[in-house]
C-alpha cells in the first residue's frame, strides 16, 4: 500500500498539534479582539468600545461556564426534529438508489473488485453525508432567523453558545445515525456483491508433470470475470491460485465412483493486515556510499527510488521492537518491489534479488536469501528463527541478528543493469490480522469526522450569513480543504507557473507553466501581487482542515488495518475544529440582535 504522507504516531503528533492549535487560537483571538474593539470604538468611542469588548468577554466566560448539557441536548433534539422535518432521509434513499445501480457504473473486469467496491461505497457515503451536513447546517439557523422561529428559542433561558453547540450536536447526531445505516448496508452490499464461487472444469484436470504423488492440476470455470488454476493432491484436498486478491479451498467429494469437487468461498478477499513498519530506510549507491535516496529511473512519481543491480547498491530498512515475544516463530514479512528493466533480459524470469538480515550493532549478517522479484505485488516471505550465517554456521534470529529490538533488512538487485525500486512502507512485518468488520467500522470514523467538520463550518457560517451564502462558504471551505495540499504547493512555489495572477497572465498569453517570463515591470508587479495572494493562500490552507487526511478508504480497500494513531488524530483534529468553530460561531451570533 502506498503511504505518501503517512501520519506520525499520536504521541509524536499531539504535542506540536496542541501547540499549533494554541498559537492559531491565540492569534485569531487577538485579531478578533482587535477587530471587535475597532468596531466598538467606532460606534461607542474609545472608552465605550473598550467597555463593550470587556463586557463581551466577561459574558463569554460566564456563558462558557454556565453552559448546560441538558439545554444543549434539548437544542440538539430540536435540530434532529428539524432535520427529520426537512426530509433528511431522502439522502438515505439516494444512497440506496446509488447502490442499486452501482454495478452499471463499476468496472466489471477490475483486477481487484473488492477494493473497487469498497472504495466506491465509502466514497459515495462520504459525499452524500457531507452534502447532507452541508445543506442541513448552513440553512437551519438563517431559516429560523428569517421565520422568526428563533424567538421561540432565544426567549427561553438559553445561551448563544448552547444554540451553536446544540445545532452542531443535533446535526452531527442525525448524520451519525445515517452514517451507521449506510455503513451496515454498504457492508452487506460489498460482501454480497463480491462473494462468488467457481466449479472445477473436470476436463481440464491433468496430472502434474514429474509428480508421483498423484496430484492433479486444472482450472475453474469463469465466474465473476475471472478463473483460477487449481491444484488438488491425491487425497482430494487442494486450493486455487490467487487471482483478484483471493483464493479458494477445493475439496473432493466422492460419491461411489464419481468424484465431484467443491470450491469454497473466496479467502483473503477481505483482510485487515496489522503491519509493523520499519522506522527508516537507507540506501547505498553503486559504489557502496550511503545516501538518503536511491536513483531515479525517470518516473514522474518519485515515491520510490531505485537501486542498480549487480553493484554495491542496496536498500536497508531498520525495524524496531522486534522481540521473540511478538514473533516467537519468526518474522512474516511482506515485500513489494517495483522492477525497472533497462534491457529486456530473460522475459520468462523475474529479476533476481537478495535479502540479508543484519544486526545493526554487531554487523553480523545472515546468509543471503535470493528470490525472483514479483513486480508490484505483495511477496509474502517468512523468516525463520533458525538461520545460517554466510559461512553456513547456524544462528538464531533474535540472539544473533536483533540488537535492542532492532533489526536491519538489506535488499539488493542481483541482475546487471536492472533496477529495484522501493519506499519505506514497501516492507513490513505482518504482525497479525485484525477483524475486517471492525476495520470497516473504523473506516467510517474518518467520514464521521469530516461530517462533524462540515456541520461545524456550516453552523458557524450560518450565525452571520444568509443560508445560501453560508452554504457557499461551507462548500468553499470543503473544496479548499480537499485541495489544500495543491493550494499549499502553489502558495509555496512547488507547483510551477506562479501564483493566481501569473497563472491568469500565462493563460491569457498562452505560455506554459515552465516558460521563463522575461524580466520586466509587468513581471515584477505580477509577482508582487502574487506574493500577497500566496501569503493569504498559505495562511488559509494552514488553518483549514485537510479533508483528504480524514479518508481511510485506502487502508480498507488495500486490506490494511486502520492504525489507532490515524483514528486518534482524525478525531482529535475534528474536535479541535468543533471547539474553535463553536467559539467563533458564538461570537458571531452574539453580534446578532436576536441573540442578545
Amino acid at each position, binding site marked *: 500500500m502506498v503511504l505518501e504522507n503517512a501520519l506520525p504516531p499520536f504521541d509524536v503528533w499531539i504535542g506540536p498539534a496542541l501547540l499549533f492549535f494554541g498559537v492559531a487560537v491565540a492569534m485569531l483571538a487577538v485579531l478578533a479582539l482587535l477587530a471587535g474593539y475597532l468596531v466598538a470604538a467606532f460606534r461607542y468611542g474609545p472608552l465605550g468600545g473598550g467597555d463593550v469588548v470587556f463586557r463581551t468577554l466577561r459574558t463569554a466566560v460566564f456563558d462558557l461556564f454556565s453552559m448546560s448539557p441538558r439545554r444543549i441536548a434539548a437544542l440538539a433534539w430540536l435540530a434532529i426534529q428539524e432535520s427529520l422535518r426537512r426530509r433528511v432521509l431522502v439522502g438515505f434513499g439516494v444512497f440506496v438508489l446509488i447502490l442499486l445501480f452501482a454495478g452499471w*457504473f463499476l468496472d466489471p473486469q477490475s483486477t481487484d473488485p473488492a477494493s473497487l467496491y469498497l472504495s466506491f461505497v465509502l466514497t459515495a457515503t462520504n459525499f452524500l453525508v457531507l452534502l447532507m451536513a452541508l445543506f442541513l447546517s448552513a440553512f437551519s439557523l438563517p431559516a429560523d432567523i428569517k421565520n422568526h422561529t428563533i424567538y421561540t428559542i432565544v426567549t427561553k433561558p438559553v445561551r448563544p453558545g448552547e444554540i451553536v453547540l446544540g445545532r452542531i450536536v443535533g446535526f452531527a447526531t442525525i448524520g451519525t445515525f445515517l452514517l451507521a445505516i449506510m455503513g451496515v448496508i454498504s457492508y452487506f452490499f460489498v460482501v454480497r456483491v463480491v462473494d462468488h464461487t467457481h466449479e472445477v472444469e473436470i476436463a481440464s484436470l491433468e496430472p502434474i508433470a514429474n509428480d508421483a504423488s498423484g496430484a492433479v492440476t486444472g482450472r475453474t470455470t469463469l465466474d465473476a470475470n475471472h478463473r483460477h488454476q487449481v491444484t488438488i493432491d491425491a487425497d482430494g484436498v487442494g486450493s486455487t491460485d490467487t487471482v483478484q486478491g483471493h483464493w479458494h479451498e477445493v475439496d473432493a467429494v466422492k460419491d461411489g465412483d464419481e468424484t465431484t469437487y467443491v470450491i469454497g468461498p473466496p479467502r483473503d478477499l477481505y483482510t485487515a493486515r496489522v503491519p509493523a513498519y520499519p522506522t527508516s530506510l537507507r540506501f547505498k549507491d553503486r559504489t557502496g556510499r550511503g545516501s538518503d535516496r536511491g536513483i531515479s529511473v525517470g518516473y514522474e512519481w518519485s515515491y520510490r527510488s531505485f537501486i542498480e543491480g549487480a553493484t554495491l547498491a542496496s536498500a536497508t530498512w531498520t525495524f524496531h521492537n522486534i522481540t521473540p515475544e511478538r514473533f516467537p516463530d519468526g518474522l512474516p514479512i511482506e515485500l513489494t518491489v517495483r522492477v*525497472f528493466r533497462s534491457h529486456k533480459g530473460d522475459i520468462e524470469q523475474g529479476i533476481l534479488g537478495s535479502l540479508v538480515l543484519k544486526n545493526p550493532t554487531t554487523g553480523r549478517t545472515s546468509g543471503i536469501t535470493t528470490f525472483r522479484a514479483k513486480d508490484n505485488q505483495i511477496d509474502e516471505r517468512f523468516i525463520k528463527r533458525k538461520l545460517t550465517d554466510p559461512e553456513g554456521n547456524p544462528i538464531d534470529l533474535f540472539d544473533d541478528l536483533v540488537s535492542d529490538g532492532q533489526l536491519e533488512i538489506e535488499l539488493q538487485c542481483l541482475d546487471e543493469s536492472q533496477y529495484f525500486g522501493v519506499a519505506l512502507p514497501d516492507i513490513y512485518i505482518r504482525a497479525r490480522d485484525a477483524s475486517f468488520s471492525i476495520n470497516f467500522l473504523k473506516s467510517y470514523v474518518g467520514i464521521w469526522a469530516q461530517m462533524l467538520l462540515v456541520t461545524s463550518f456550516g453552523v458557524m457560517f450560518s450565525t452571520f450569513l444568509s443560508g445560501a451564502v453560508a452554504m457557499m462558504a461551507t462548500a468553499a471551505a470543503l473544496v479548499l480543504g480537499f485541495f489544500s495540499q495543491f493550494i499549499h504547493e502553489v502558495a509555496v512555489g512547488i507547483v510551477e507557473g506562479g501564483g493566481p495572477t501569473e497563472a491568469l497572465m500565462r493563460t491569457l498569453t498562452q505560455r506554459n507553466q515552465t516558460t521563463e517570463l522575461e524580466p520586466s515591470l509587468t513581471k515584477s508587479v505580477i509577482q508582487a501581487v502574487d506574493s500577497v495572494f500566496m501569503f493569504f493562500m498559505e495562511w488559509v490552507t494552514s488553518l483549514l482542515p485537510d479533508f483528504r487526511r480524514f479518508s481511510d478508504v485506502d487502508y480498507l480497500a488495500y486490506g490494511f488495518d486502520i492504525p489507532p494513531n490515524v483514528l486518534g488524530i482524525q478525531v482529535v483534529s475534528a474536535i479541535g475544529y468543533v471547539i474553535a468553530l463553536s467559539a467563533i460561531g458564538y461570537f458571531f451570533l452574539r453580534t446578532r440582535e436576536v441573540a442578545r
Partner: protein
Amino acid sequence: MSDRQRFIRKIVYACIIAALLLPLSWLSEPATTESDGGLLAQMRAEHRLSQSTLGDIDPASETIKLAMLGMRGVAVNVLWTKVNDDRKRENWVGLSATLEQIAKLQPNFISVWVYQGWNLSYNISVEFDDYRDRYYWVIRGIDYLREGTQYNRKEPRLTSDIGWTIAQKIGRADEHRQYRRLFREDDDFHGPRPRSQRDNWLVGREYLLEAERWVDQEGLPIKGKNPVLFHSHPVMCLINYAEALEEEGTFGEVAKSAWNRAAESWEQFSNRDMPTQYSFFVRLGDKELFDERAKESLEELNRLAPPDLLEQMLEERIAALDDEQREAYYLPPEERDSRQNEMMLGINSLLSISHMQFADRVTGENRAAALKAAEEATQAEFMSSTIDLARDNVNYTYWHKRCALEPQDATLEARKKMYDAAQAFTAARLLESRELYEDGLKKWRKVLDANTFLLEDVNLVEELSYSIGDYVELLHQLDEPMPDPFILQDVLVSCERYTGRAYPGAPANYAIPLEDEPATDSAAQPDDEPGSDADETAPPEESSDASETPSPEPVDDNDQGGTKSSGEDDAAPPTDEPADDAPDTSEDPSPAPSESTLEKSAPDAP
C-alpha cells in the same frame, strides 16, 4: 379588453398552435419500423447521428449523462485528469474504473476508445514486469476497443484498431512468443474458436477484413487513415503469419501454403482500386503497365522528333543562362561552393525540358503525332509516379518480391536448415549443428544470388546476422576459425552498414574480408554509383527501394517490450504509424499534372 376580445385572442392562439403543430410533426416525427419518420429523423439516420443507428443504447450511459445536468464536459475533464494521475501513481484499479466511467460519459467519441484502448495495450501493459500481467493489460485494451464497437457499430477505425492491436501488439512485442502462446490458450477471449485458428495474425486479420468490408460495401469513411495502408493491413497479417510460422519452427507444406495464401492475397491487393488525392483511383499492380506505355510513347516521340532536337533545345537554354549561372553549371560538382550548389537547383529547373515542350518544337507533318505521343507519355509517367507514391507507403516492391520468393522450396529449405541448426546448437549437438549451418548457409547463398534485393532488407540481414553470430559461436566452441572468405560475406557487409556490426558478438575491430563475388558487388553497387543507369542493373523500382531501409510494415513503434523507458509512454496512439514518414496521399496534395513535373533531366555538369 373585453371578454369577447380575450376569447377571440385565445382562439387565435389556439389556431396558431395547431397550425405550427403540422410543420413540427413533419419535421420531428420519430422514425418507426414502418416509417422513416420526419425530416429530422431522416437527417439523423442519413448522418448516423441518432444513438440507435450508432450502436447499442446503454441505460447506464444515458443515466450518467443525464445525471451530469449539463456538466458532462467538466466531469470528463476531471476524469481524464484522474486517469493521468492514477497512471502516474500506479493505481491500476482506479485507472481501469475511471476509463469505464469516461466511456459511459462519451460513448460515441471514437477518439476516446482509440486513445484509451491504445493506452491500456501499449502503455499500461509495459508497466508490469511479468509478461502474463502485460498480456492481461494488452487484452484489456483490446476488450476496451471491442466494448467501443458495441456503442459504435460499423466504425471502421475502431474495428481496424482492434485488428491492429491483436495482430501487431501481440505479434510484434518483445514478448511476442509468450503473447502468442497465451493468446492461443486464452479460452475466455476466443470462446468456441478452435485452437488451430487462434493465431493472432489471423484473428487480427478477421477484424481488419471486417473494417475493410464496411468501407467497401457500405462506403463508410476511413477517417484519418491512409487508404493504401488501411487496405494493406489484412494482407500484411497473412505475410506476418507465414513469417511467424517459420520463426516458431513450422516449415514444409504448412509454411508454403501460408506463403502462397499471402502471395495470392498480395495479388488481390495489387489489383484493388485505391483512391488518390487526384480524385481518381489507381491499382498498385498497374505501374509496370504505365511504365511500358510511357516507354512506347517516348520511343514514338523520339522517332517523330528530329534527332538533335533535344541537344539543340538544351544548348538554347544554356545560352539563356546568365554568366554566373553558366559558371556554376560548368563547374564540376565537387568544386562548387555552397551558393553555387544552391543555384544549381534553379539551373536544373531551367534546363529541364518536358515532353510537351519537346514535342512543341516538332514541326511539319509529325507535329500532331508528336504532341499526342508526348501527352500520352506525360499521362503514363504521371500515373506511374502516382502509383509509385502509393507503393512507397507499403514498400510494395519488396513485399511483392518476398511473396514470390518465400513459397519457393529453396527459400523454405534454407530457412528450415538454419532453424534446425539453431535447435541443434541449443541442444548442444555441435557437429550436427555445424553441418546444418553450413548446409543452410549454402542454401541462403543460392537464394541471395537469385534475389539480390534481399540484401537491402534490414530485417532479413539482421536475422541472418544473428544466425551467423550463432554459427561463429559454434565454431568458437569447436575451436575452429571462421571461414575466410565467408560464404555470406555480403550479408555481413550489409549488416554492418545497417547496424554498425557485422553480426551480433562480432569484435568491434572485426574486419570483413573482401571478396570479389558478383552477388556482393551487384548488391552494393546501385547506391555507390549515382551515375549508373538503374535500368541496366536492376528494375527502376529496385533502385528506389535500395535507397531506403525496407521496414515496410507497420512497425510497433510504441512497443519496447521488456524495457520501460520514458520514451515509450508518450508515444502517439496507433494511427498508421508506418506511414508517418511516407507521403500521405490523402493529405499531401502534390501539384496537378503539368509539363513542369515531367522532365527530361538535363545532364549534370560535363
